[in-house]
């Protein structure tokens, strides 16, 4: 009886907490739009964060993008070879890379690398009272720490996405060239012939939304870290898991919308 009573007591509390968490998360997002576009601006910090997020992710993005393109081409060849259609490989790979793989691979890599970094850094600052120290020094910590990181993520993800696409196509070209002796000019001519304006814009939109998601989720988790070093680890871990989960949901929604615009599901 006691157990049942306790359970029934706990349940409404958990539900209340769930809705409270959602409210706080939305309030955190809305605060970004209130803070990021009004002075004072921290340009130097945005540039520094762009360097940290963009430049420092290049090595990982290069390896991942290249392997994605190469492996995708290798895996697709046997199926196309059955119909004698290996000449379609450049088109197939480019459509797959630009429409889906480049934005998604870039976002997942950045969610792991950048999201965890933001979560851990801000979480550590929170539990060691550095964020409070900023607050009492009359500095707006949200503006300085969160707005700059979210802006940098939102700006850098589209650039990294195009870079991933390019590196992936280079990986693909390497395989196509080794097997079909296709020249680079022919490969890229075929590759870009099958991509239209909508593909580019959809991918840019995806990258912008994913970048914003990674930045805001990482910052939110870090800003709300508690319980010392354990809390910092949880913030970093939770930043990665939550942002990846949201990115997959966003992917489904954006693909549906872009297919609708193309004229059918």
């Amino acid at each position, binding site marked *: 009886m006691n157990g049942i009573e306790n359970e029934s007591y706990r349940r409404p509390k958990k539900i209340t907490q769930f809705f409270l968490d959602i409210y706080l998360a939305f309030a955190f997002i809305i605060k970004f739009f209130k803070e990021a576009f009004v002075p*004072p601006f921290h340009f130097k910090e945005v540039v520094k964060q762009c360097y940290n997020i963009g430049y420092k992710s290049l090595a990982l993005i290069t390896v991942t993008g290249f392997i994605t393109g190469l492996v995708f081409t290798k895996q697709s060849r046997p199926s196309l070879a059955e119909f004698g259609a290996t000449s379609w490989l450049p088109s197939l790979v480019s459509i797959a890379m630009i429409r889906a793989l480049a934005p998604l691979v870039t976002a997942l890599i950045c969610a792991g690398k950048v999201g965890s970094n933001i979560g851990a*850094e801000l979480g*550590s*600052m929170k539990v*060691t*009272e*550095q964020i*409070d*120290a900023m*607050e*009492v*020094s*009359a*500095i*707006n910590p949200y503006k*300085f720490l969160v707005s700059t990181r979210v802006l940098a993520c939102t700006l850098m993800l589209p650039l990294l996405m195009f870079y991933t696409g390019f590196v992936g196509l280079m990986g693909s070209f390497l395989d196509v060239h080794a097997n079909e002796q296709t020249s680079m000019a022919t490969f890229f001519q075929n590759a870009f012939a099958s991509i239209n304006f909508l593909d580019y814009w959809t991918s840019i939109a995806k990258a912008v939304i994913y970048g914003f998601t990674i930045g805001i989720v990482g910052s939110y988790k870090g800003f709300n870290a508690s319980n010392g070093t354990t809390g910092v680890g949880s913030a970093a871990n939770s930043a990665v898991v939550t942002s990846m989960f949201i990115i997959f949901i966003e992917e489904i929604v954006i693909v549906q919308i872009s297919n609708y615009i193309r004229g059918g599901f």
Partner: protein
Amino acid sequence: MSTIHWKAPVKERVITIRGLYKSFGSNHVLRGIDLDLDRSENVVVLGRSGTGKSVLIKIICGLLKPDAGEVMVLGKDVPHLREKELRALRLKLGFSFQSSALYDSMTVRENLEFPLVQNSKHLTSKQIKQAVEEVLDAVGLIQTLNQMPAELSGGQRKRIGIARTLILQPEIMLYDEPTAGLDPITSIEINNLINEVQQRYHTSSIIITHDLTCAKTTGDRVAMLLDGKFVKQGSFEEVFTTEDERIKSFYDYNFIQQ
């Protein structure tokens, strides 16, 4: 013969707290606090760990909101200030954290420059450099200018934390456990520094501590916090000349520990 009328100097009140309450869930931390701080006065808030001493100064600087009560700082009603007004007020408050809270990704120089650069956009780099060197000199750590916080000792970190608050030339200093975790010699150095800061910068201070040596050395007045209320206020000697067993045991325990 003309009569000389002696007029007592009117003390300017910089902090007034009346009927302050604060709870965290079912934990009632502050239960009706009244406290005044005059200009150029050092008030020590003494009490055991977990009695809400730090909560009190966090409410004073607006980091926490009280459940009830009045908190007037330099004539401003802190709990009801808007964010912009609160930031303006915080320029006049210095907060020295128990953990020092130095920005660990920045050097000592950058730690000191940061609040100045963010709040005083009109200053030239030469003026900023001069201000940094001046406060570092005041805390006696000019040689640590290019060191990272991780390379500093506990006492040095405390001093740099105090220097970082002094760079904005605050009118009121709030010290949260300034001697916690320090050896007795370093504690005495920090106590002396608190007094030097008061004399050199004419600050008014609230010092949160459970260290009686710190209370005796730095406090013009001592307020004893027990069970969420101030049970006694006055000079160090007045507070500890008492029959209240709770205060006596606090004194005895500190004495035995030392």
